[in-house]
C-alpha cells in the first residue's frame, strides 16, 4: 500500500525539480517556491482546469498548458515566465476583470483577495473594455449567514465543488450557462448547509461573504489567536480574529488530523455568545427572592460557608462539559479532595440507568482513521447534527468506496450517502442491531423488526460481513433509548465479531475533558477508578478520597427531589433544560436548600439559583481541552472576559482557601503538570483513551422496570428526542447567527400522520404529554416512521424535557394543531430543511 512512488525529474524556469510521479506541474513549482497564479485549483479537490490562470509553457507542447492539471513528467521543461505565458495570463486576467466591479475598497475580501493580488502582479493594468458590464442584482442574501455578490464572482466553481465533493450537500450550484452562468441556490432560497462558512473561506474573491462579518473589519486590523472550537466534541482547530478586544470572526486553522482546513457553521458563526450583552459580569446572590449583584468576596464567603456546613454526602456537583481540562480537574479536586464528596457527574443529560453510564464516552479510533473505513455503521448517531466535521471525513471514506449503514430512529440528512438505511421505531433499534449480527430475533409485531424491512437488514448484514475495516459508532439516540443497554451490548458484540472497537459518540463540548479531569462519580482524573487512584491522590492532594462511588447525575437529581441534598453546585451546565425530566428537576430545586450556579449566562438553572458566579468562556481561557477522540489541544485566550467574570479553576481555588485548604496554582500549566502526574500519557496533542463511565461497576440499583405502555388513543405518538446542530442551548441561542439558523422550534412527523391531523409543513402544533407541552412547527417528512414524532432537544422555547417522565421508558405525546397557518408559511429556513 505504502509504496514510494517513483520520482520524476523536470526543469522549471531553469531549476531542476524532482517530484513523485503523479504530482502536477503546479505542485512541483510550488514545492520549488515558484509561484504560479491560480483561481480554480484548490488542493483539497481534484483539479478542474476551469479558470485557465495557471498557464505555463512546456517544451514540445504546442499550446500553453494549465499547470494545475498537467502531470509532471520526466524531462519536462517548463517555463512560468516566458513571454507567451505572461501574455496568456494577462489575457485571462483581463477576461476575468471585464465583468468584475473592482470595488475593492468596500469589499470584505479587500486585502486578502487573490484576484486583487494577481491584478497587481500579473495584470495588464488598464482596461480596454468599454462595453456595458454584466450586471446582476446587487448582493443577494442567501439565508442567515451568507451573502452572494454575483458581479464579483469569477466562476472558479470552488464553492460548488465544495458542496459536491467535500460536504455532499450540494448547497451552492451553478445555474444557467455561458456568460449567463451564476452561482446561486435554486430560486435564490436560503442556502441549506451546515458547512457554508467553508465556501466563504475558499472563495478567491469577495463574492461569498459572511453576513455576520460584513464590514466588521479589514484583514489587516485583525489579530489571529489560535484556539480550539469547543461547541461540539470534535475539537476543530480555529483561529479567532480579534480586533479591539472582540472576536470579529472564526476561521479554520489547518489541522490535518482533526478538521483538516474545514469547520462547520456552528464553529464559524458560533462565537457571538462571547460578547453577548447578557454575559454575567458580577456575582449574584438571592436577596428577598431576587438575584442581586454582589462582590466576589461576599459570594464566595457565602458559598464556602454553606459548603462547609453541609455533610459531604449531602453535597453534589453537576456539569463540566464547558470547562477546560484544568478547570475540570481543579473542580474534581475541590469536591473530592477538599469537600470529600464523590457525587460528581458531568453527564447530566442521561436517563437513569441509561447505557450512557456504563460505557466509556469517546472514540476508540482516531478521527483521521475515519477516512480509511470500508464500512461505516452508525447506530443512533446523527453525525451531521452532533459531530458535523466528522461527516466530512466520512464523505472522504465514501469517496474511496466506503459503504454506510445507519440504524437510526430518523433518517439522516446524509441519507443519499447511506447505502443501508434502517430507520426503526424508537426503542427498537437494539433488535435491529442484533439482527445485523445474524442472530435473528423473530418479531411478532407488524412491519418487521422495529418497522424495518427484513430484506434491508439482511442486505446490511451481508455488507457488514464483508467489511475489513469497519467503523462502528453508537450515539445518543441509541444509548438513551429505552433499549439502550441492550443496544450497547448488541453493538459491542457486533464490533467484537468485526474485531473493531466501539466508538461511543456521546458528549458535547469538553465532556471528554470533564471525564479526564475526574468529574465522574466513580472515577478520578484520567478516568481511573477511585480504588485504583486513591493512593496517588492521597500523595498529591494530601487527602484521603472515599473509595465508594458517588451518585450519577440522574441519581443526584432524584435524591435532590427527595430532599437528600443540602447543596447542589452546578458548573457550566443547565440542568433545567438538559436533565431528562423537567418535572423532577423542579421538584429537586424546590427541596434544595442551596443551589450554586457557575456559568457565563443567567441560564434557566441560574435564574432559580441562590448564588450565581460569573465565569469565563472558552475563547477567554488559557489551557487545554479534550476532544471526542481524546486529543488534548491548547486553548489560547483570545479576548478578556466581561466585568469580573473569572476562569472556573480560580473560583474553586478561592473556595478551597475559604474551606481551609491549600489549592493554589500559578496558572494552567501548573495544573496540567499535576494532572500529568496522575494521568499516564497526558501530553499536549496526545490522544487519551476513552474513559469514564462505570468501569466495571455493577448497577447499584437494577434498572427500573420499563413501563412501555401500549399506545393509547389519547397519546398516539412516540416521541423521539433528538439533536439539531444549531439548537444546543445557552451559547448557541446567544449567538445571533446560530439562533437564526436554528429558527423556530420544530418537530417532524410522517406525512400520513400529518394528513390525519391534518397539518401541513410549517403549521404550528402543540405536542402534549401527560406531563407537559411544547409548541413547535411541523416538518412533514418520511424520515420518521408513522406514529413517531421527532423533537430536537435544544430549543429553549420547546424543551423536550418538559414532556418526559424519568420513570417512563418512552414518552408518548399527542399533537394538536393550532390555527393552521397556510401550508409552508413557516417555510424559508424552517420549512425547507426537510429531506
Amino acid at each position, binding site marked *: 500500500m505504502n509504496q514510494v512512488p517513483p520520482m520524476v525529474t523536470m526543469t522549471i524556469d531553469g531549476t531542476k525539480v524532482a517530484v513523485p510521479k503523479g504530482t502536477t506541474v503546479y505542485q512541483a513549482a510550488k514545492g520549488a517556491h515558484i509561484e504560479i497564479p491560480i483561481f480554480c485549483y484548490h488542493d483539497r479537490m481534484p*483539479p*478542474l*482546469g*476551469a*479558470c*485557465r*490562470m495557471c*498557464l505555463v509553457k512546456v517544451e514540445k507542447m*504546442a*499550446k*500553453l498548458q494549465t499547470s494545475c*492539471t498537467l*502531470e509532471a513528467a520526466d524531462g519536462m521543461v517548463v517555463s512560468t515566465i516566458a513571454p507567451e505565458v505572461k*501574455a*496568456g495570463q494577462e*489575457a*485571462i486576467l*483581463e*477576461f*476575468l476583470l*471585464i*465583468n468584475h466591479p473592482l470595488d475593492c475598497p468596500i469589499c470584505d475580501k479587500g486585502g486578502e483577495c487573490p484576484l486583487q493580488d494577481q491584478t497587481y502582479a500579473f495584470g495588464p493594468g488598464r482596461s*480596454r*473594455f468599454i*462595453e*456595458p458590464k*454584466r450586471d446582476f442584482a446587487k448582493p443577494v442574501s442567501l439565508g442567515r449567514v451568507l451573502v452572494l455578490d454575483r458581479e464579483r464572482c*469569477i*466562476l472558479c*466553481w470552488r464553492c460548488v465543488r465544495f458542496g459536491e465533493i467535500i460536504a455532499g*450537500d*450540494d*448547497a*451552492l*450550484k*451553478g*445555474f*444557467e*450557462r*455561458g*456568460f*449567463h*452562468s451564476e452561482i446561486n*441556490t*435554486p*430560486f435564490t432560497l436560503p442556502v*441549506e448547509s451546515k458547512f457554508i462558512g467553508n465556501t466563504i473561506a475558499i472563495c478567491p474573491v469577495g463574492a461569498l461573504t459572511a453576513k455576520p462579518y460584513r464590514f466588521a473589519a479589514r484583514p489587516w486590523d485583525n489579530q489571529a489567536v489560535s484556539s480550539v472550537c469547543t461547541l461540539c466534541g470534535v475539537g476543530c482547530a480555529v483561529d479567532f480574529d480579534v480586533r479591539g478586544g472582540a472576536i470579529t470572526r472564526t476561521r479554520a486553522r489547518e489541522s490535518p488530523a482533526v478538521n483538516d482546513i474545514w469547520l462547520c457553521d456552528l464553529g464559524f458563526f458560533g462565537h457571538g455568545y462571547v460578547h453577548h450583552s447578557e454575559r454575567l459580569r458580577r456575582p449574584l446572590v438571592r436577596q428577598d427572592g431576587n438575584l442581586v449583584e454582589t462582590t466576589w468576596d461576599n459570594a464566595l464567603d457565602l458559598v464556602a460557608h454553606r459548603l462547609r456546613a453541609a455533610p459531604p454526602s449531602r453535597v453534589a456537583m453537576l456539569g463540566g462539559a464547558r470547562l477546560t481540562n484544568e478547570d475540570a480537574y481543579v473542580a474534581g479536586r475541590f469536591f473530592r479532595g477538599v469537600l470529600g464528596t464523590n457525587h460528581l457527574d458531568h453527564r447530566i443529560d442521561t436517563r437513569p440507568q441509561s447505557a450512557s453510564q456504563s460505557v466509556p464516552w469517546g472514540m476508540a479510533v482516531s478521527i483521521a482513521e475515519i477516512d480509511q473505513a470500508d464500512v461505516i455503521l452508525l447506530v443512533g448517531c446523527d453525525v451531521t447534527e452532533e459531530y458535523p466535521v466528522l461527516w466530512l471525513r466520512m464523505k472522504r471514506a465514501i469517496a474511496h468506496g466506503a459503504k454506510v449503514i445507519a440504524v437510526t430512529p430518523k433518517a439522516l440528512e446524509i441519507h*443519499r450517502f447511506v447505502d443501508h438505511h434502517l430507520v426503526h421505531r424508537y426503542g427498537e433499534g437494539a433488535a435491529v442491531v442484533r439482527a445485523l449480527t445474524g442472530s435473528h430475533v423473530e418479531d411478532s409485531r407488524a412491519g418487521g423488526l422495529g418497522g424495518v424491512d427484513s430484506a434491508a437488514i439482511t442486505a446490511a448484514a451481508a455488507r457488514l460481513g464483508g467489511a475489513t475495516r469497519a467503523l462502528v459508532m453508537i450515539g445518543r439516540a441509541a444509548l438513551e433509548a429505552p433499549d439502550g443497554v441492550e443496544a450497547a451490548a448488541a453493538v459491542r458484540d457486533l464490533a467484537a465479531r468485526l474485531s473493531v472497537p466501539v466508538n461511543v459518540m456521546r458528549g458535547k463540548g469538553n465532556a471528554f475533558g470533564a471525564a479526564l479531569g475526574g468529574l465522574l462519580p466513580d472515577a478520578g482524573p484520567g478516568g481511573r477508578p477511585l480504588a485504583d487512584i486513591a493512593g496517588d491522590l492521597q500523595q498529591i492532594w494530601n487527602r484521603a478520597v472515599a473509595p465508594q462511588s458517588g451518585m450519577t447525575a440522574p441519581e443526584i437529581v432524584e435524591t435532590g427531589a427527595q430532599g437528600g441534598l443540602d447543596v447542589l453546585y452546578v458548573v457550566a451546565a443547565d440542568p433545567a433544560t438538559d436533565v431528562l425530566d423537567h418535572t423532577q428537576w423542579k421538584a429537586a430545586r424546590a427541596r434544595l436548600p442551596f443551589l450554586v450556579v457557575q456559568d457565563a449566562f443567567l441560564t434557566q438553572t441560574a435564574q432559580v439559583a441562590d448564588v450565581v458566579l460569573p465565569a469565563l468562556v472558552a475563547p477567554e481561557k488559557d489551557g487545554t481541552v479534550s476532544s471526542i477522540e481524546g486529543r488534548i489541544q491548547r486553548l489560547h485566550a483570545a479576548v478578556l472576559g466581561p466585568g469580573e467574570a473569572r476562569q472556573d479553576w480560580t473560583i474553586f481555588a478561592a473556595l478551597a482557601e475559604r474551606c481551609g485548604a491549600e489549592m493554589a496554582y500559578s496558572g494552567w500549566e501548573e495544573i496540567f503538570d499535576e494532572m500529568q502526574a496522575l494521568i499516564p500519557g497526558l501530553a499536549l496533542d496526545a490522544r487519551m483513551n476513552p474513559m469514564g463511565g462505570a468501569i466495571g461497576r455493577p448497577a447499584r440499583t437494577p434498572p427500573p422496570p420499563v413501563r412501555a405502555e401500549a399506545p393509547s388513543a389519547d397519546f398516539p405518538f412516540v416521541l423521539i428526542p433528538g439533536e439539531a446542530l444549531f439548537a444546543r442551548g445557552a451559547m448557541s441561542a446567544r449567538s445571533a447567527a446560530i439562533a437564526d439558523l436554528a429558527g423556530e422550534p420544530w418537530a417532524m412527523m410522517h406525512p400520513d400522520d400529518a394528513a390525519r391531523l391534518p397539518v401541513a409543513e410549517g403549521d404550528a402544533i402543540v405536542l402534549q404529554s401527560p406531563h407537559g407541552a411544547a409548541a413547535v412547527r411541523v416538518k412533514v417528512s418520511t424520515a420518521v416512521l408513522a406514529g413517531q414524532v421527532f423533537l430536537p432537544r435544544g430549543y429553549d422555547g420547546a424543551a423536550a424535557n418538559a414532556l418526559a417522565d424519568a420513570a417512563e421508558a418512552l414518552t408518548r405525546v399527542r399533537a394538536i394543531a393550532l390555527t393552521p397557518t397556510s401550508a409552508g408559511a413557516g417555510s424559508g429556513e424552517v420549512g425547507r430543511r426537510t429531506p
Partner: protein
Amino acid sequence: MVLSENARSEIRRLMAQFPQRQSALLGALFVAQDEVGYLSPDALADVAAVMDLPVSEITSVASFYHLYRFSPEGRHVIQVCTNISCQLRGCGRILDHLRRRLQVDVGETTADGAFTLKTAECLAACESAPVMMVDTDRLGPMSERDVDSLLDQYAHASTPSASRPRLAPPPVAPQTSMILKYIHEPDQGELEAYRRRGGYEGLRRALGMSPDGVTDEVEKSGLRGRGGAGFPTGRKWKFIPKDPAIPRYVVINADEGEPGTFKDRTLLEGDPHRLLEGIAIASYAVGAKQAFVYVRREFHHARTGLERALAQASGAGLLGHNILGSGYDLDVVVATGAGAYIAGEETSLLESLEGRRAMPRLKPPYYPAVKGLYSRPTVLNNVETLCHVAWILTEGVERYRQLGPPILISVSGHIARPGVYEVPLGTTIRQVIERAGGMLDGRPCKACFPGGSSSAILPAAYLDTQMDYDALAKLDVYGSMLGSGALIVMDDTTNMVEVVARTVEFYRDESCGKCTPCREGTMWLGQVLRRMLAGQGRSEDLALLDSIARGMTGTCFCPLGESVPPAIYSSLRFFRSEFEQYAKGAGGVPQAVHA
C-alpha cells in the same frame, strides 16, 4: 405534489433504463414540463423526490439546457432558426413577419396565450432554410406566405394537432451512392424493406467473426469519425481494454448541432435501421452489453422513427437477447438531449448522459475509452460513422475503399439545391457546389465555411481545395478543417461582419461557461461586433477583435472556445475592408438581397 401518478411512474420507467438513475433526469424533466407546462418549483421538487436527488442539483441541471422553461408559455411555441444558413436564406424576414403578425417580441407570448415566439440555433435542417419549429414539428423553407397560412391554420383549428400544417422538406438530391443509396425510399425505415435491401447482413457477418476481426476490418477500411474530429474509428475501438470483466459501453452521438450540419438527422430520419445495425456491430466489436443513443431533443421525428425501428429490430431478434442466435446480448437505450450544442462534445455528452450539466471533462483522466460513461471504458461514435460501419461489414472493406471512401457533405447557404451529398473523400469544394446545382441564382461565390461554423472562413480563391481531412487542415488558413463536413456557401451579397457576429453569438450562447476565455471572450467579441454593426465602431476595434481572439487561442478548456478565433482571424484577413468600413463608425456594406 403536482405530478400525476402517471408522470411519476413514467419517470421511474426512465430511471430503470439506466445503470444510474440520474441518467434519466433530462427525460424526467421533460415529463414534468410536459405535464405542468413549465418547471415550477413544485414540479422540480416532485422530480427530485421521485429520483431521490437534491433539488439544487436538478434545478441547476435544468437551467443549463435551453429547452426547459421556468415560467408558463403559450400553447404553441414557435422557434425560428437564426443560425448562419438560415440567416443567409432570410430568416430575419420570417422573424420580423412573425413579430408583426403576433404582436410580440422574441421571448414573449401573445396576449391570447396561443403562441410564444423564440429563436433557435441551427436545427440541423439547413437544407430547408429558413427553418422554424412549431412545438415538435419542423417546417421549412418558410416564406412570409407560409407563415400566414400556418398561423391561420392554428387559429382556426379547434384541435390544432388534427390539422397541423406540414411543409414537406425538399428531398435529398437523388444520387448513386453507398451510404445514401436508399435514403429517398419512403419505406427504408421499415425493418422489412431494410432487410429486403440487404440490411442486417453486415451484423450477421460480424457475429460470425471474432470481435477483434470486426475491429480490424473497420480499421482497414480507413474510416475516420464523422462527428468532426476525424479520429480513425478502428483505432478508437482498440483503446477499449480487453479485460471482459470491466463493463464497457457504446454511446452514439446523435446530438448533431454544428451549424450547417444535417447529415446525421437525415440518416436518422431516413435510415434508422442502418444506424442500429452499426451500433450492434460496434458494440459486438468492443464487447459492450449496453449502448446509449443520445438524440438531440429537437429531433422529435427522428426519435420516434428510431424508437420504432428499435422495437422492430428487438422483436426480430436483431437486438436484445441472444442476437441472431449468436449468444451475444445488447440492450440499446434512446436518451435525450435538452438543447445544448456543447453536449455534442464527447465528454460533455457523457456528463449529460449521466444527467448533469453538459460541461466537458478533464482529459486525462476522463478519456472516454478509459473513464467514459459511469467512469467505464466507452466508445463514442457519430451517427454517420456507424452507418459507414454497417455498410463496410455488409459490402466488405475492398468495395468500400474502391468506391470511396465516401463522406457525406451537408451543403447549405446560397446554393441552388441544398442537401446532403455523398462524395468521395477528396472532391473539391467547387465540385461539391456544382453537384448541388451551383450557386443560388448563379451569383458568384464569395466565401464558405468548409467544415461548419467551427472552421475558418475560406474566400472563393480556395474553392479548388479538396474536401479531405489533410488537404483542408494543411491550408495556410488557421482553423481550416473538414470537421463534420458542413459546407456553407456565401455569395457576393453576404455581409461578412454580420456572419461573423452571428457565429460568435452562437458560441457565446452555447458556451458552457466553465472556462474563462470562452465564457468572457465570446461575450466581449459579441459586444464589440454588435457595437460595430450598430454604427459605433472605432478604429482600434480591429486590433481589439484580433487581440481578444488571441487571448482565447490555445487557452480554452475545450474545442468549443477554440472554434471562435478561426472565424475572426480569417474574416479579418480576407474581408478586412468590410471591418474597416464599420470601424469608421458608419453603417457597412449592403445587406443580403436574396428572396
